[in-house]
């Protein structure tokens, strides 16, 4: 991906104009000028309270996620530039089934949220890591890293077992999904562009590969992060608040609603424990489901995955992950927290 290519332009508007191409740079300038001219109108729209709330949440999600995304693309660039496929193959066990848990536990080393793990796991795939193992890493990294576990412990001072339950549920989700992919997954579900090996063009130093890969990943995943932020902001405003109030004492309904909420709210995995803790009327197991589902599948993540691996992948992977995550969370809750409560 980092290699300069000579393919025809994919997305530039009006590229078919016979006389002279309007380049995307000119389009961008036009957009900026138009936006400047319309600034007064834009600000007027913000007089509507719901729009104002949505706009703030949108910017907040983007601003909060951007440092993690940058961390992710830097790690991705480092892997592309300095970690050869051969070295990765030597570290990982030869059989995919054994590589999945290794990759899952390796996820503990990336202290970021889900935005960081998508570019990294795609890069791992491009460097020849089996997709099943890279996907286990993708699901494990945002959920079981030390920062998230400490945040969970801080948010639930009265329920120390919540940390163990979350670790167990999330790790189980990652491993089960990895093994499921190893058994049933087909390579053609992943978009070709995601698997194409990054070839280092002759004469390019590792530094050039590093900066070019990071830049490219940032531009492409950044756009999808924005999709996720927009959706999260809209749902933040649109999801009726009465959902929460009706959940007191309802374990089964609670599991269902909290799982859906985890998907639509798209909270950062380092913050979701505090939100779950504040929902004190909801039983514990549904709140655990919220914590396990959120980092594995949410609106922002689905958008990022569709961008990195293609829509065909996201439309299959996300629903299965949702079901597996709910199952693993309930199981972990029953085992660790002692029953459905």
């Amino acid at each position, binding site marked *: 991906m980092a290699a300069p290519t000579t393919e025809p332009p994919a997305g*530039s508007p009006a590229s078919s104009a016979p006389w002279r191409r309007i*380049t995307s740079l000119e389009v961008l300038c036009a957009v900026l000028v138009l936006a400047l001219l319309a600034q007064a109108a834009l*600000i007027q729209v913000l007089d509507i309270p719901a729009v104002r709330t949505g706009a*703030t949440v949108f910017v907040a999600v983007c601003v909060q996620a*951007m440092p993690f995304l940058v961390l992710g693309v830097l790690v991705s660039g480092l892997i592309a530039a300095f970690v050869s496929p051969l070295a990765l193959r030597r570290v990982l066990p030869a059989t995919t089934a054994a590589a999945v848990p290794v990759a899952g536990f390796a996820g503990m080393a990336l202290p970021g949220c889900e935005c960081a793990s998508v570019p990294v796991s795609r890069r791992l795939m491009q460097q020849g890591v089996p997709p099943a193992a890279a996907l286990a890493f993708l699901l494990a990294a945002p959920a079981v890293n030390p920062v998230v576990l400490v945040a969970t412990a801080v948010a639930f001072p009265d329920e120390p077992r919540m940390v163990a339950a979350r670790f167990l549920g999330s790790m189980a989700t990652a491993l089960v999904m990895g093994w499921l992919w190893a058994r049933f997954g087909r390579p053609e579900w992943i978009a070709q562009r995601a698997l194409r090996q990054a070839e280092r063009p002759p004469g390019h130093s590792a530094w050039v590969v590093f900066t070019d890969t990071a830049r490219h990943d940032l531009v*492409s995943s950044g756009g999808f992060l924005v999709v996720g932020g927009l959706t999260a902001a809209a749902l933040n405003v649109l999801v009726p608040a009465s959902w929460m109030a009706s959940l007191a004492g309802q374990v089964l309904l609670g599991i269902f609603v909290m799982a859906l909420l985890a998907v639509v709210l798209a909270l*950062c995995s380092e913050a979701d424990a505090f939100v779950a803790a504040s929902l004190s009327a909801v039983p514990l197991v549904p709140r655990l489901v919220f914590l396990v589902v959120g980092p594995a599948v949410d609106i922002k993540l689905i958008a990022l995955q569709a961008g990195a691996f293609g829509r065909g992948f996201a439309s299959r992977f996300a629903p299965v992950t949702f079901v597996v995550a709910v199952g693993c969370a309930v199981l972990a809750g029953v085992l660790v927290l002692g029953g459905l409560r």
Partner: protein
Amino acid sequence: MKRETQNVLLLLLGGALCKIAWNGSYLRYVKPSVLPFLVAAGAVILALGLISIGRDVLAGRSAPDQHDHAGRSPWLLVLPVLAIFLVAPPALGADTVSRSARTLAPRQPAIGFPALPAGPAPALPMSDFVTRAVWDDAGSVNGRQVRLIGFIVHGSQDITYLGRLVISCCAADATPVKVRLEGRRGLEYLPQDSWYEMRGQVVPGSARPDTRFTPTLTVSDLHPIPIPREPYEY
């Protein structure tokens, strides 16, 4: 989208992050401890854009023919850039408080409450005040004048609240705290979302399950204040 355009977008995006970090408006969106990461992210984005531009310039005119496979998604990066530079959405306020059924369910602290600061009317964070009103059996806020800072929220049935939002990571996870205001005429005419410092005294026993643990404050004095630099509590 052409490489050049992507680079310009990166400069804009990095610039936007640096701008909100510089002028302090990032506090409308995230908590203060994010600042170093925000600056670092903005600097890295700017650097990636500049390095790429520099390389293209040095490579001469071959660059414009290079196209990435990124498709159209990078165009969406224009949205946060425009939102930050042109609109600069304000901090969340009364709309979020009335929209959310969640209120900060104050947790009983493992240890007792420290005594209130000395002085005639100590300033308390709203969340601290509500927690004390709900849980403190020793009644450390009862019979004491306190000062609270928040914004006006008009609820149903002409009830006026002082509201504040508590965030743990970013504004998307904001949880409201509120205090019901009583004891002064004209509270219902205060403009929604305007910031006030309220001085008053809690009505003992007013934070009950049937009031959804919202204490009542008998207001003795109030005056408008500008929006604080840190609009949220943490």
